[in-house]
């Protein structure tokens, strides 16, 4: 289990990274936290001729806040998100997602940009970003562009990211204090990829739900925004929500695929359980 030979470069500037990327195109891989890439290389499931290590690019790290958004550098590690008071204050959903992301050793290295670029269907952060209606900022030598999360994730491990681009940052709108965040997942073991997960974000003011975002992960090829269920909640009083109707709507929204550890039937069952938990939690949180 040794990787095929590859060239390795570690630029210290974003420009340096983008130049290398432009030259090498699809024949290179970006090394961010390496938590998924390294096993892939070692198992020779991937054999790029060039590995571009972006761990030395300072401008990709860090969290900053403006009036309307929180901006997270793509190399910001999960552990840093977990500890950040900015994140826990302004984006509690991301903060709440952290304990579900594998184990501390992985969170110490893994990055938000890496997680989004890989787009594992069972990963938490892609779903959270969709629920938060965040944007992914991508940069090439010629341009910088932003794409809303729901359009960024396209298919199984497939995103809008082009071969000459890297993710430079994530921008998440700031929401007011009336927003309620909820994330939960069911996995075989603590820290495993979920059998089914839910990221939930909604405004609950005077017990009335609005602007709800319901995003399931680990059920289909990419995060699934449950639009029928979201419609059911719009304007509803949280204590009056019919769980049965809502769960039926979730059933309409999802068409899960089975995997090694959970059949499609189980995933759907869990999705209904999770939406119930979200509403219950919303009621208790007042």
């Amino acid at each position: 289990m040794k990787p095929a030979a590859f060239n390795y470069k570690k630029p210290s500037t974003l420009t340096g990274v983008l130049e290398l990327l432009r030259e090498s195109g699809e024949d290179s891989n970006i090394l961010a936290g390496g938590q998924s890439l390294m096993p892939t290389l070692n198992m020779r499931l991937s054999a790029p001729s060039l590995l571009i290590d972006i761990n030395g690019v300072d401008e990709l790290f860090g969290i900053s806040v403006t009036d309307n958004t929180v901006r997270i550098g793509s190399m910001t590690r999960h552990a840093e998100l977990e500890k950040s008071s900015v994140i826990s204050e302004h984006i509690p959903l991301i903060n709440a997602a952290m304990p579900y992301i594998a184990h501390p050793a992985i969170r110490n290295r893994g990055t938000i940009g890496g997680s989004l670029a890989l787009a594992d269907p069972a990963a938490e952060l892609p779903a959270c970003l969709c629920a938060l209606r965040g944007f992914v900022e991508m940069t090439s030598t010629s341009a910088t562009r932003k794409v809303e999360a729901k359009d960024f994730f396209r298919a199984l491990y497939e995103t809008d990211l082009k071969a000459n681009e890297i993710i430079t940052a994530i921008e998440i709108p700031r929401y007011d204090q009336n927003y309620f965040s909820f994330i939960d997942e069911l996995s075989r073991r603590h820290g495993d990829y979920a059998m089914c997960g839910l990221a939930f974000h909604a405004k609950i003011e005077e017990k009335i739900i609005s602007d709800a975002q319901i995003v399931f992960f680990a059920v289909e090829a990419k995060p699934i925004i449950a639009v029928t269920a979201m419609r059911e909640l719009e304007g509803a009083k949280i204590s009056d929500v019919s769980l049965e109707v809502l769960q039926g709507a979730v059933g309409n929204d999802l068409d899960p695929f089975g995997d090694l550890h959970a059949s499609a039937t189980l995933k759907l069952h869990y999705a209904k359980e999770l939406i119930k938990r979200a509403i219950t939690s919303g009621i208790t949180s007042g």
Partner: protein
Amino acid sequence: MANLKEMMQDHILDRPNSYIGKSVPRPNAKRLLAGRGTFTDDINLPRQSHVAFLRSPYAHAEIVKIDVTSAEASPGVIKIMTGQEMAKICTPWVGVLSHLEGIKSAPQHALAIGKACWQGEPVVAVVAKTRSQAEDAIDLIQVEWNELDVVVDMERALDSDIPVIHDELGDNLTWQRNVDCGDVDAAFKNADHVIEETYISNRHTGVCLETRVIVADYNPGEEQLTVYLSTQCPHMMQNLFAKHLGLEEHKVRIICKDVGGSFGVKVHSYPDEYATAALAYCLKRPVKFTADRLESFTSDIHARDHRINTKIAVSNEGEIQAFEIDDLTGIGPYSVYPRTSGIEVNQVVNLTGGQYKNRNYRAQARVVLQNKSPMCQYRAVGHPVLTLITEGMVDDAARRIGMDPLEIRRKNLIPDDSYPCTAPTGLPFEKLSHHACLEKLAKMLDYDALQKDKREARENGIYRGIGVATFIEVTNPGATFYGIGGAAISAQDGATLRLDAKGNLIVEISVTEQGQGAEAVVAQCAATAMGISLDKVRVITGDTDVTPYGGGTWASRAAAIGGEATVQAGKALKKNIIEVAGIMLQADPATLDIYNNNVVDKSNNTERISLEEVGRICYYRPDTLPKDYQSELVVTRHYVPKQFPFAFTNGVQGCYVEVDTNTGFVKFKKYVVVEDCGTVINPQLVDEQIRGGVIQGLGGALYEECLYNSEGQFLNGTMADYLVPMAVEMPDIEVGHVETPTLESELGAKGAGEAGTGGAPAVIMNAINDALSPLGGKVTRQPFTPERILMAIGKIT
């Protein structure tokens, strides 16, 4: 009476300053924790090369053509070898033993010849300067395969439309055994209740933190093959490498350094390890093979793939009147060498229901071939399966007649005062303590309080269940386990004790350290027998050129058998020391003893001469001793159990679980094990063996399964997909002991390494089923996944 008193004074369990029964720290812990262990992969020899294997990507395929032309030209490549050439260096083997009457298997080669029989079977070996280069070259090898129909489902392995894997065997039935004891038919005919059930034990594997590793080197000058190997049984491997490479046994040396877990995985011989040794012999230079995790999953032995139909007869009063089982097990394409893949099911046949008074017992076992990884003995061989079905059946019976699970066991377990006696199959029990253990468990669980809590929880829609599972466990096997069947596997072990010139004690012993603490236990036995302090003892294991000949570590034998050999060697060496000290002191040896590193006056422990001084005189000033006297400060003693084929141990596990009926998740609220391994030498190590064992059993019960698709492709060969329990999944486990020493040895110790594993699946299943019983659901198929639990209660279909 004076003699008896003297005898008792000299008894190992009655020594002053004894280390027996004390949780002394392991001498190797500090080194390992400091990262200064030497595992086999840490060994790097001059001119070392690395071998990697092209393994069959198919479960069953003819090897039509192998083209290595471009691979040979790949940088760093030293040698590429296929099966035909390998067979000229390394002879094939057949995994059968004569005491498993009728067992058959096909010749197996180090590298497949003609066809590959499981996905992962080694086919081509590539030796290169680095492992990366060897893997690069493998990518360039062109193999033309002709895919063959596969045998995957063991239920279909004997059907007429299913291919026979090895034509020369005639069919896929490797072995069959039937036993019929008492009058089973009459018992079932007359029974108040007969309950039938099918249990499925899932194929899983022992996941060692350290994978299999071998570094082999051949020195043509000495005609000596030296093999560094992560193994449980150095002398067995010495014999096998010599035999199949055509070398003299004394020209093969096995060195086993630190081992990062073995669990039975490293008690077998593997094709890739023979190939590595053969390549070193052929190339006359060191060759290293380190299994990576993926190849561990497809080449390490798997275990416990069984489907068992069961039937129990019980009276209205709760008397168990008969057990009947029909076990079908699929072992992969070959019976594993040299221990065979028949032993696991043989244990199931021998021991099912063995803790109960019932004498009516019938069993059928069939062992079939299939195109999956070979299956063989893994920690607690057969016991997790047989305990699962025994205790599953007993709970089935209790539920049917509405009897408390503890009560039905009280009624049917062999009484503690009725030993010696035998199992229905004839295996003798020296002395067991089922009832003492059961009562202790009930107390530790606080059984009545749990029952109350369970009832109250149910009123609130919370489903909790109590599980109880009693067990018996084979430990300390004598020669009837393997040797009698023709295997060159020693049931005997030896210890050599040497007092050095500074009064320190060097122990060389043939049992091995796998990370379980065997060296600590041996040191405790040596120090206690000798009367010296533990810091003066150094234990050396794992080198066939150094230690006495012996079996190594398997079947929960290292502490008890190695410990007894050490005790006897220690007593003999002490006698020698006291003899020479008597000469030095002009004292009667009968008045002397050794205590706290000094030869002392036996009557009052006052120091007469230090061991250091004895050593100094014996080694440097023997001229001061009588001319006709020769001191002997080295003694070897061996031990092998002879009176009983096994030292059976027993115990009981109990747990309290909560099942989330919305998710099917199982949460442990309490887990207790009471076990009887005879004399407890080191309580902490025994408790950790029990706990670690439980976790491995729990893994099989709830998480671990080798998944295959219908083409025989292994689906979950990574640590992300093959689910071993990790820290969060491990319950707190309380361990209690009842001590019933075996009288066969002075030490009285029995094995403790497998009891946790053997009982865990049964107790977990019983607890889950107790929780599900108000909902009318029941799980009988391992692993008891959330999905299966939800299906059992009709939450999903």
